[in-house]
Structures are given as structure tokens and as C-alpha cells.
């Protein structure tokens, strides 16, 4: 295992070392010490490696991740796993605003709460949050899944496209064009698979409600003007 201590090693050295790794690397396990809220820790990794970050990170932790399994043993600042392509990012603490924003693939697990705008403009990423999420989450969410075991804040799924949202707790309010939808057998299956991937065993899929697009705002139609 390679251990890099950010108290002595500059962040750029850490990230360039991580960027040097590729498929089949011998250095498959990494540990990062003393991140102390620094920005852009372990961003842009493009290799099937494991990175354990011991402590809280600032903006964009694990951003643009491809293939790597990144675990943040602490909380994450704004934009954690932003634009993730594949692999996974696990946050053991809370995440600040716009967690998983614009993500195209991979799995983001937040074991604490996520703040506002979680999954904004998500495009294929799967996000599982054990706690609550803040307002304007899944705004303009295009595809992928957002699973929330706690509550959701105001305006969930505003102007949503085809992302699927599963919320176990209360939804404070739904955004424009977002509606509750029926949980059909295939949705229970999808949700069960997501919970399993996230390592969550203590909840049942029947405890969740599904939300998605009413599909009224895809194209402008004067009859739907009130919905905007």
C-alpha cells in the first residue's frame, strides 16, 4: 500500500502520482493522510485502484473519477464526486452541496447527510444517501438513480428528465414536473440492487416511494405554462 501524507506532500504530487496509475498497476491500494479539508483530493483518477482518504476533504473530492474505488473517511465539501464517470466514491460522513453533480456513471454513497442540490444534472450516476438530502436535489436530473433513506428538502427533482428517485422519508416539496410514481416490481428490483451495491441491508424496498418526471416540460407547450 502506498501512503501519502498531505501534511508533507503537496496535493499536486498526490494527484499526479494517482494519474500515473493505469489498468494493471501494481500499486492498487493507496492511503491519503491529513487532507484537512483541501480541495480536489484524488480528482481525475483513471485506474482500477483503491484510495482511502483519512479525514475530511474540501471541494470536488474524488471528482471526475473513473474506475477507482475512493473512500473518504470523513466529510466532503461541495461537489464531491462531481462528474464521476465510473467506479465508486464513498463518503463516511456528510457531504456538502451538489454532491455527484453531472455524474455520468459509477456509484456515490454518502453515509451521512447530503446538503442542497445533491445529484443536480445527474446523467447516469447512481447516488445512495443514508441520511437526508437538501433542497433542489436532482434538479434537471437526466438519468441514473438517486436513493435517499432519510428525508428530501424542498423542490425535489425540479425540471427532472429520466432519472429515477427513491425516497424513504418525507419529501418537503416536489419541484416543477416531478411527481410520485408507482413502485412496480421492476423498480423494487432496481432499488434492491442499488441498496445491495451500497452495502445497505437494514431497509426494505417497500419503505420507499418513487418519484420521476411528469414529462410535461420536455418541450414548451402553452397548455403547460402553469407548470413552469
Amino acid at each position, binding site marked *: 500500500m502506498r501512503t501519502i501524507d498531505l501534511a508533507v506532500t503537496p496535493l499536486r504530487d498526490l494527484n499526479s502520482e494517482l494519474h500515473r496509475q493505469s489498468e494493471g498497476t501494481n500499486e492498487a491500494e493507496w492511503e491519503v493522510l491529513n487532507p484537512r479539508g483541501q480541495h480536489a483530493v484524488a480528482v481525475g483518477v483513471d485506474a482500477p485502484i483503491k484510495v482511502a482518504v483519512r479525514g475530511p*476533504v474540501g471541494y470536488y473530492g474524488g471528482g471526475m473519477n473513473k474506475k477507482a474505488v475512493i473512500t473518504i473517511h470523513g466529510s466532503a465539501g461541495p461537489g464531491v464526486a462531481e462528474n464521476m464517470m465510473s467506479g465508486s466514491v464513498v463518503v463516511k460522513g456528510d457531504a*456538502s452541496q451538489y454532491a455527484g453533480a453531472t455524474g455520468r456513471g459509477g456509484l456515490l454513497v454518502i453515509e451521512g447527510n447530503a*446538503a442542497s442540490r445533491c445529484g443536480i444534472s445527474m446523467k447516469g450516476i447512481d447516488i445512495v444517501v443514508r441520511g437526508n438530502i437538501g*433542497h433542489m436535489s436532482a434538479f434537471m436530473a437526466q438519468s441514473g438513480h438517486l436513493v435517499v433513506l432519510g428525508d428530501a428538502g424542498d423542490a425535489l427533482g425540479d425540471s427532472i428528465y429520466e432519472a429515477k428517485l427513491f425516497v424513504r422519508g418525507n419529501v418537503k416539496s416536489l419541484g416543477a414536473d416531478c411527481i410520485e410514481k408507482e413502485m412496480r416490481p421492476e423498480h423494487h428490483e432496481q432499488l434492491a440492487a442499488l441498496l445491495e451495491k451500497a452495502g445497505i441491508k437494514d431497509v426494505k424496498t417497500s419503505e420507499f416511494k418513487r418519484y420521476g418526471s411528469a414529462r410535461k416540460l420536455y418541450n414548451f407547450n402553452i397548455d403547460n405554462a402553469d407548470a413552469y
Partner: protein
Amino acid sequence: MCGIVGLFLKDKALEPRLGELTAQMLATMCERGPDSAGFAVYGSSESGKAKITVQSADADKDFVGLDAALSTAVGSPVSIERKSTHAVLTVPADKAEVARQTIKANHPGVRIMSAGETIEIYKEVGWPTDVSQQFHLRQMSGSHAIGHTRMATESAVTTLGAHPFSTGSDQCLVHNGSLSNHNSLKRKLKHDGMTFETENDSEVAASYLTWRMNQGMNLGQALEKSLDDLDGFFTFVVGTKNGFGVIRDPIACKPAVMAETDQYVAFGSEYRALAGLPGIETARVWEPEPATVYFWER
């Protein structure tokens, strides 16, 4: 952008370290606000005395004889302690208003940064760590402190445009964000007798809270009201003689993170600002909710 730090001590044992802790918190926020910086420190008070912190662009000239001139004007002894471009004047509490009026009327180069029993405000244009060194923040002690690093958007990069803003006795406010209804609100406040030193939107917010507190509200109630009356983006951290408050607008774009232990309550625009605090590893760390008032009083 802008960076905010705040530290409200519950444990008196930490009071000698207030300046040191605030300085290292402020240093982590330099990139968020490289234009100017400032801080309010709630330090010691002397019974029956008030402190007026003043600033001058030409301190060598303006501060000479200022204490003597004020002593004559108020009819009581006034002492002065100069710190670089700033100075703290100590005046009898019942003469503080006369002293303020005298400074405004007779000393046009001297600007009042703050007035009150315990508050001292220092602010200048420049890189934040340089500003904190200029005034020896590290050596200061006290019960609570609020600091700000500014990246200007709404008005000019000047000493007076730097934060914190103080619009009432022992009150101060720092702001990250921008207000969109500050002009109309300012007209209303002016109509009710509030005065303004700058064109800055944050000064309007500070003045608004003072105006509310003058109506008999406490800081918590004034902050609650601000949610109805202020439009725009804001994360505010506000201090009074005994209080420390935090509020974010309902959209809450401007970042904020807080930590609390048995020893202190701390605020940072980012976790980096909190990373060096004692016991942070086991502190309760959380992101303040939008449109929610957080308020501590000692």
C-alpha cells in the same frame, strides 16, 4: 467568493488564544478573499469605559493629538493606543456618543471602525495574513472573534468597504454573497435615521440588523426577520457583546460549515478554516441549514 471565519468561546481557558486561533483560521481563507481582510475581536472591557476603534489613511498626522483634542471636547480624559493605521480610544462610557460626534465633526480623516464596551475592529486592503500581522491579531485575546477575507463584487476595494461592518454598539457583521434589494432597503433605513459610510450592500445588512435591535429585538429575532426583508445571496456571521449568530439565505449557495465542542462554537466558509482548532477531530461538525437562525449567547 469571500471567506468567513468565526470563533465563539465557551471555555474561558481558551480566551488568551482567541487571536492566535482566529489568525490561523483567517490564513486558510486567503484565496477566497485576497482583496482585503478584517476582523472584530471582543476583548476585555474596563468598567465605565467605552472603546472606539478608529482608522486613518494618514495615521501619523491624524492620530497626533487626537486624544488631547477629544479629552477637551468631552471634558474627561481619553487615552489612545495606536496599532498601525488603527487606534483604540478609551473614553468614559457616558461620553462615547459625544466623542463619536466630535470625531465625525472635527477629524475628517479619522474613520470610526467600531464602538462599544469590548469590540475592536481592524480592517485593511491587502493579503489577509499581512493584514492580521499588521495588527498583531495573534497576540489578541477575548471571548469571540469574527474575521473576513474579501473578494469584492458590489463595491470598491477600500478599507471602508472591507468587512466587518459595525453599525451599532458592540455589533458587527460579515457577509459572503450579494444583496439585490439593498438600495430600496437603504432608503427606508435612512428615512428612519440610520446613517451609512459606504455604498456597500453588506453595510445595509448590518444597519438593518441594528435597526431591528434598536426596536427591541435580540440578535436572534433580528436575524429571523432578515429572512423576510433581505433579498439576495447571503451567509452572515454576526457578533454582539454577548452573542454570536449565523444565518444563510434560503438558496444557500454560499458555503458554510460549523463545529461545536464544549469549548467553542466555530464557523468557517470551508472545513479548512476549522481544521486547526483544538479537538476538531471529535467536534460536532455540520453544515448550517438554509433559512435557519443559529444563535449563541453567553
